[in-house]
């Protein structure tokens, strides 16, 4: 039975689909692999090992290998992201390893991905893990290989400090935060580099976005404990240590030509034998070297991947004293899962459960046979032929963890692509207007019963998208975000619109209801409608309209402007200004009083300024007063003026959106009334004048 894995498959598939983008190709190429983009060759030249004072070939742009192919059978090739940019992805091997990517595939990240924790499944990947990364648009894969010094501790100049130089250089060359993918002690090399000063900073958190670790002994290694026989090892059980010693002994009994290449016995020995090295001693639980390493800096996403192997071992004990036959947990045999995932932001574990049976080998030597503990129909395999997706040295060959690593890299790169209007069609939305939070489909929240309202991108319901959407970096991370207007209602009239901030993904950063932003003394309007959103230097200038207090007609006569800004926790509003018809009415009255006909004409319909100038002579005291304004159907309009808003009545001023009254104390009138009509956002006109 063929088994296909779907972990983080959406991202991974999206990355593969995106591969269809075009490439910038330089005329330098391997014989059968695609050419390398010229920009990457330039970075490679800028960050050459000798320029950084490192041994030759310590850092290399990973070539694409002819055998690494896409699911469509085409050679894997570098391609830029949607911004036409690349981001460095730095590969760092571990204790006793290497990672230079060559056609012999001896590098720890170069093997074709061919293992799975599901013994009933098979893997049909046609790429190495490096090939997987090369297949992601925007990824530029570099290897950092310190093999000649890999038994040294991470503070050696060839390890942590050297990786720091490489990170500095590639960050500066690309202008992009780098991604690091590390195996085993390579994760500690990376932690050393991340926690030590970079150019002008106390650490390198501004140069690194994501670190993916495979089996990194964050708190120590089981293998390193094998030399500590006198201690009661609190971190690891006696059963675990005894079992690993047994495996090592049985593996050691085979001749090298008996062992199949790539099997557990072939690959386990080197790290176990290195326990007496400087690094091996430092990797013991509680060592002063481990204690001296600082925690991962805040701001770096650490995705820690671990293997978790459990063996059912019948008849384990101390001679005639049997021990409980609980599964013996050995992590990935070199590192426990707890150690590998200590201090991580995200974790994933691949689990393998085996039954380990002793058998008598040739000459009565102990042999070991492995099979799935729960699948009796799986034939036992001899240890010398056994490969496993959960074993330390094979973690980068297993489909489960490599899918997770691919997803982490693709997610990181995706987060750098600016949010687009198309992205927002499937954006998450908050709970509002009595609807639960959800995700838009085609720009609208699905699943709302008929007559229960809606939640949608405001521009889908009329209005210009360019007015209701602002694009730009809103949280200061250098990537393109979006501020979008969301319109909703619960089945009746529209509710105040929301302004939601989105980061790439799109992910909802935060939102604010415009009904919650009001000038002092003003009540929230029944509705609030965005007139325009405009990006301005890390913030959004929002303009919206809402009804004034006491207006039963709910005419949007109050126009607000505010600067909306993300403060790290929420959206704040500053520079709030409110404009109504009152300002225009008051200015018109002042212009009339001052005899400035031209200015008054600019604020009024034809002939109104002249008529007002005439009335000034009859009611001079009214033109000294401050106007009081009312809505079309306002119930609190003074009685003498009520006829002005009584539809069909003799005094009715048709089409007046607001009425502003100037009290007249002279004989013959109570008020000079100005009929006001809105001409646009914050623009009003005096359309007629009446005496009541």
């Amino acid at each position: 039975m063929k088994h296909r894995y779907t972990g983080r498959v959406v991202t991974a598939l999206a990355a593969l689909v995106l591969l269809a983008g075009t490439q910038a190709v330089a005329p330098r190429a391997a014989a059968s692999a695609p050419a390398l983009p010229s920009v990457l060759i330039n970075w490679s030249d800028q960050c050459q090992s000798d320029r950084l004072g490192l041994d030759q070939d310590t850092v290399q742009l990973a070539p694409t290998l002819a055998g690494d192919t896409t699911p469509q059978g085409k050679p894997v090739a570098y391609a830029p992201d949607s911004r036409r940019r690349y981001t460095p992805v730095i590969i760092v091997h571990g204790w006793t390893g290497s990672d230079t990517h060559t056609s012999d595939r001896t590098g720890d990240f170069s093997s074709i991905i061919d293992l799975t924790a599901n013994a009933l499944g098979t893997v049909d990947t046609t790429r190495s893990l490096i090939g997987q990364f090369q297949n992601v648009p925007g990824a530029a894969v570099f290897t950092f290989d310190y093999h000649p010094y890999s038994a040294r501790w991470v503070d050696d100049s060839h390890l942590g400090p050297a990786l720091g130089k490489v990170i500095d250089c590639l960050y500066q060359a690309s202008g992009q935060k780098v991604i690091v993918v590390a195996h085993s002690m390579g994760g500690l090399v990376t932690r050393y580099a991340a926690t030590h000063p970079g150019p002008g900073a106390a650490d390198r958190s501004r140069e690194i976005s994501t670190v993916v670790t495979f089996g990194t002994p964050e708190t120590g290694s089981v293998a390193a404990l094998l030399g500590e026989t006198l201690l009661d090892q609190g971190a690891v059980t006696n059963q675990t240590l005894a079992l690993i010693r047994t495996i090592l002994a049985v593996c050691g009994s085979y001749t090298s030509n008996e062992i199949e290449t790539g099997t557990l016995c072939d690959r386990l020995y080197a790290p176990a034998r290195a326990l007496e090295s400087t690094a091996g001693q430092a990797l013991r639980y509680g060592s002063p070297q481990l204690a001296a390493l600082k925690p991962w800096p805040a701001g770096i996403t650490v995705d820690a991947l671990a293997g978790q192997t459990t063996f059912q071992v019948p008849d384990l004990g101390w001679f005639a004293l049997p021990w409980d036959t609980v599964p013996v947990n050995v992590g990935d045999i070199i590192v426990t899962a707890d150690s590998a995932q200590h201090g991580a932001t995200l974790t994933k574990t691949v689990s393998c459960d085996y039954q380990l049976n002793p058998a008598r080998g040739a000459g009565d030597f102990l042999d070991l046979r492995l099979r799935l503990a729960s699948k009796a129909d799986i034939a036992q395999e001899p240890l010398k032929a056994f490969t496993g997706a959960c074993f330390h040295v094979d973690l980068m060959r297993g489909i489960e963890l490599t899918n997770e690593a691919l997803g982490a890299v693709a997610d990181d790169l995706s987060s750098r692509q600016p949010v687009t209007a198309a992205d927002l069609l499937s954006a998450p939305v908050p709970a509002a207007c009595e609807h639960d939070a959800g995700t838009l489909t085609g720009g609208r929240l699905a699943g709302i019963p008929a007559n229960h309202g809606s939640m949608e991108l405001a521009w889908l319901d009329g209005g210009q998208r360019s007015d209701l959407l602002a694009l730009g970096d809103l949280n200061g991370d250098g990537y393109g975000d979006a501020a979008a207007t969301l319109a909703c209602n619960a089945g009746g009239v529209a509710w105040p619109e929301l302004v939601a901030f989105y980061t790439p993904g799109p992910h909802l950063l935060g939102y604010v209801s415009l009904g919650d932003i009001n000038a002092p003394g003003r009540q929230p309007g029944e509705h609030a409608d965005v007139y325009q959103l405009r990006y301005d230097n890390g913030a959004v200038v929002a303009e919206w309209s809402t009804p004034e207090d006491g207006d039963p007609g709910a005419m949007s006569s109050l126009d607000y402007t505010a600067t909306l800004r993300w403060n790290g926790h929420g959206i704040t509003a500053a520079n709030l200004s409110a404009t109504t018809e009152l300002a225009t009415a008051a200015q018109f009255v002042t212009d009339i009083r001052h005899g400035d006909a031209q200015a008054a004409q600019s604020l009024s319909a034809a002939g109104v300024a002249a008529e007002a100038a005439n009335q000034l002579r009859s009611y001079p005291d009214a033109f000294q007063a401050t106007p009081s304004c009312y809505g079309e159907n306002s119930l609190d309009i003074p009685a003498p003026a009520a006829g002005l808003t009584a539809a069909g009545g003799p005094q009715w001023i048709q089409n007046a959106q607001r009425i502003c009254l100037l009290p007249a104390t002279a004989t013959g009138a109570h008020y000079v009334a100005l009929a006001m009509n809105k001409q646009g956002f914050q623009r009003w006109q005096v359309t007629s004048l009446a005496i009541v």
Partner: protein
Amino acid sequence: MSTDPAALVATSARSEVGNQARQAVPPGTTVTPQVDSWLPDGVGGGIMTVTIAAPGTPAADYAAVMVQERGAWKVMATLLLPGPANSSTAGAR
């Protein structure tokens, strides 16, 4: 082993064996190490087949996981090997 089995319990196994080493190797037990079966683990220890014949019980073979502590060999754990013991019960006590 047959006279003072507790002295052969590895430090890391003490919490599991406790004071039951004598029950694991009862008085009168014949202990026969199969020297030729020694397999070093490459990290300072190794495994060896040991035949145990306790009074009144059939002999059994164990793979004993051995480590050195201050120059002395200790037993961390054993695995019971399948089938009847391959050696005679005669041997060192």
